């Protein structure tokens, strides 16, 4: 499934199959990327840009931050030697067409999200209803954590929610399996 080609003069090497397939510490420099670009057809590179834009949009709709490793593995693949160019073009396209900005929220682990460039408007419902409710719950939890100096015990958080009638044991009308929502989904969304 993965390519094992060696790109001549591209200034990096591919690791073994599996997780090391995309050795992130050896990304090509800007001038290397420009040289590598010349060896690719415009159409092929543009195709990768489109795929990346779609990939980012789909991931963002699920509100899951996007890892660079996933981008490389699932979209960029053998075009890794021009990765930075593809990402830059995708970022520009997202801004020009969608008014969205690609932001790196974790520069160490290279994790991205999309945020809207557009000014906030009053009373706008960008989310479906159950998403808005989940967001409300998340904000309440975060406020509680903040008030407690950022590291309350799990039990304190659940006690707080219990007083708001949101309990881990029962199935909540709107949120469903609350424990799962909080411990899995919210944590996954960072």
């Amino acid at each position: 499934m993965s390519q094992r080609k060696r790109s001549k003069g591209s200034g990096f090497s591919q690791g073994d199959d599996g997780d090391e397939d995309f050795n992130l510490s050896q990304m090509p420099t800007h001038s290397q990327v420009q040289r590598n670009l010349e060896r690719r057809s415009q159409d092929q590179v543009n195709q990768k840009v489109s795929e990346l834009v779609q990939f980012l949009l789909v991931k963002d709709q699920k509100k899951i931050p996007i890892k660079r490793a996933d981008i490389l593995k699932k979209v960029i693949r053998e075009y890794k030697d021009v990765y930075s160019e593809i990402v830059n073009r995708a970022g520009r396209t997202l801004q020009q067409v969608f008014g969205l900005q690609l932001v790196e929220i974790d520069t160490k682990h290279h994790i991205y999200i999309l945020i809207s460039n557009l000014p906030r408007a009053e009373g706008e419902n960008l989310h479906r209803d159950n998403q808005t409710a989940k967001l409300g719950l998340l904000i309440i939890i975060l406020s509680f954590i903040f008030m407690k100096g950022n590291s309350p015990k799990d039990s304190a958080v659940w006690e707080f929610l219990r007083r708001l009638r949101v309990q881990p044991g029962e199935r909540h009308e709107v949120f469903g399996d609350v424990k799962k929502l909080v411990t899995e989904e919210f944590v996954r969304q960072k």
Partner: protein
Amino acid sequence: AMAAQMTDAHRRFLQVLMSHGIMEGSEARKLHRRCCEIHKVYYAHDKLDDFISTINSHLQPLFMQIRKGMSESDGRAHYALVNLAETEITKMASDYTENELELFRKTMDLIVLSENGFASSTDILNLADQLKTKKMKKKEVEQVLKVFVEDKWLSERNGEYTLHTRCIIEMEQYILSNYQDMARKCNICHSLVIQSQVCESCGIGMHLPCVRKYFRAQTEPRCPQCNDFWSCDIP
């Protein structure tokens, strides 16, 4: 003629449509007006389709499009943001696991090949037992179906499942080419039809809203193709 530039009004419209996946016509018209108001862009009343064409000209290099289609349940126009590249199951591929995709494909088979365009949960559960990728237990199937409904690939009614309008709009070309003669086209509007009424004599099918519209003006309902008496209840 060159398409107009994207403005923030277009971008806002696109962002909102994207978060909904699909929007009913009157909702879309309201949104068009609102976006123009917020960003102080000239609002051409009744020119939603032109507004959307501008957006589409910029989406085209990305193999995406805002497409208009009809809901099979109420006949109303809806707008959906669709992916044009390749076969459409691949778009879902980044969201679902392999066996979930297999379940979806098999459910779609059931729905498209059925008379009335619906698959019962019992039938779908039976499919899950025979998945080649990885079997699914009943609880898991129920959960996956719920996600498919939330994500607007399927619609549910009384424990039965059909394709969501958004799915039909997005996957119409794929369905017609994948199922060929086994997928029907409506005799009136010539679009793909999933929930159809069928003529008992000659076998042509029609959307329920198309049936309603067509027979409204007639004293005696007769098949537009073979002229035999139309035996189904007019919706």
